[in-house]
């Protein structure tokens, strides 16, 4: 970890160069199910799992990922056309994007966290679920969402900034030694 950050010191990564990180901790009240939204300067948002998410912890193995979120709604069927992205599914903060099942029987749901039109989901993680674990903030992304132009500034209002999120994580780690 230390080595990698040294190499990045001279030159920020692609995510650091073009995106702002926003966090939704304990999504839907489930402890540590933190989501991280990468917002590009052009307002496009990429939904990812934060590094603290239980799925990304040691010992977890992904069994399956499904974008079929209900009997008649699959995020894979989302099709957009033209510059104005006609035909996109519209998502609200709590819209589920996909369900991930682990070999230990746990199931996690990933949510949109922001309002906007769904542009694409990451089909690469269906072929290669390990991407999600190896590169959760880049190639293991979940979905790409385009907020409404007029909401581009306010769409992250309900989320935490990097600094606010780090404080929460710190509080959590300080709390854990007592319980374990």
């Amino acid at each position, binding site marked *: 970890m230390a080595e990698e950050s040294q190499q990045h010191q001279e030159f920020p990564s*692609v995510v650091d160069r073009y995106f702002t990180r926003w966090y939704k901790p304990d999504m839907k009240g489930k402890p540590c199910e933190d989501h991280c939204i990468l917002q*590009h300067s*052009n307002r496009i948002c990429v939904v990812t799992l934060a590094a603290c998410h239980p799925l990304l912890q040691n010992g977890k193995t992904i069994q399956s990922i499904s974008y079929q979120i209900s009997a008649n709604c699959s995020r894979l069927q989302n099709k957009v056309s033209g510059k104005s*992205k006609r035909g996109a599914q519209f998502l609200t903060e709590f819209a589920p994007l996909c369900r991930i099942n682990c070999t230990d029987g746990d199931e996690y749901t990933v949510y949109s966290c922001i309002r906007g039109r769904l542009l694409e989901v990451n089909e690469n993680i269906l072929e290669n679920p390990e991407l999600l674990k190896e590169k959760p903030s880049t*190639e293991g992304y979940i979905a790409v969402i385009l907020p409404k132009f007029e909401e581009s500034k306010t769409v992250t209002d309900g989320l935490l900034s990097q600094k606010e999120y780090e404080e929460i994580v710190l509080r959590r780690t300080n709390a854990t030694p007592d319980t374990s």
Partner: protein
Amino acid sequence: MPLIEEKYRPVAQMLLSSGTCPRCVLRFCCVGTYSPYRLPYKDLDGEMQTYVAVSPGDTADPRWVPPCKKAKLDISIENPGDNFLIDSSQLNDKNDAPSLRSCNLCLGILQDLSEADFIKEIFQTVNSAGYEFKDFVFSVSLPAQMSVREHSTWLQAKQEMGKHGHPFEKTDVIQLKEAYKWITHPLIAEELGVQAVSKSSFEVAVVFAHPETDGDCHFLAKTCKDCFKPTKNKLSVFTRMAVIKALEKIKEEEFCASFSYPPQCPVTVCKVVDLQCSHASVFVAGRYNKYSRNLPQTPWVIDGERKMESSVEELITEHLMAVFKADSFNFSSSGREDVDVRTLGKGRPFAIELVNPHRVQFNVQDMKELQKKINSSDKIKVRDLQIVTREAVAHMKEGEEVKTKCYSALIWTEKVIQEEELQALDHTKELKIAQKTPLRVLHRRPLASRLRVIHSMRAEYVDEHHFRLYLKTQAGTYIKEFVHGDFGRTRPNLGSMMKTTADILELDVESVDVDWPPALDD
């Protein structure tokens, strides 16, 4: 030699006695040569009176009564466009008999408005606008009601001719605009020292109006409703085109019942309501180098706020605008580079349309000096600066999609690089990649996956985490995304090929292989 063909004599008599000017009489007598129109108005008037009064071996038409004499009338110019103000006082001061009236057909166009004094006034304002031109088109817009008056007169003349067994088509009548050109072109040439021609890049456009007779058209709206539908940008529904269309549709009897012959002679003459000069766009092309990584190609504005001080476009066009004295410009180029990308080698072809330029005559030496001025910047350099045709610019845009581009990039890899891996890149030819629309442009472009070809690559080792990569690619390939993978949305990408995370630290365009504009020797 008689002024007009004998068979038209009754028409001439009829018109002259009803308040039509002698030049309009020539038109309705189908005189298709310009010299009679160019006779001094008084002389022509005299000849015409003599011609209709006495006819060889015939007595004058008993209906014939001498017409009122034509007098000088007010010429006033209202609301001139584009700051052209014509002082009409000079034209007014020889007003002699205000009770006398204008021609009932041309409303003064072939009378006072064909005189040297008026033409002089017009072209003094043209001259003061400061345009450079070799020749020009003189275009004239006439009030729509003239068509109604002409129609009425033609119907009457046709009837008169018919009595003697002669057919008379509307197209036989010499167009007012045509006659106006015949009279005014020599006067204009004298005033400006250049020729009025039918095709030129410089245009002088005059709009005449005649409020006194505007009402002539109104009855047409009742007979032909669908010809006069209100449109957003027109002040009046009675446009010339709409009136002509309505006249084609209306039945003769209906027309005659609503508009009786002869049309009344007005007391005023047409006035100039707009006078516009315009020069066709001039196109300047060249190739530019961009040496700065903090310079966008075009002004970068977000939410009305400038993000970067300058741009390639501005550094070039500020000098062009200053010497061509154009109203505005349009910048185009063969592709574009990002703000942080340099363009080296022979540069990127560009073309700039200069809209309504006032100065257009520049020789090779002038263009060289202009290039030198642009090149005083240390951020960009321009070469092969030249004036080109509009068609040639289209050629540049065609080349954009098909030509290859060469780049050089400084690459960082997360893992330590082995020499063999770099050799593997050297041996990769015609690599097909699938690129989804990059996230950085996805907000304004459709989402698609496009197949692109990396024709060849060559790598130069820098240190264990860095190397320089030279690429030759199909136009339209996103290089940055090929290197870092854009969240795995470009596949394969340099990172996936080398089984590491790769990033791009610097990118330069080495060549844009479009062989336009032609190279000039320095």
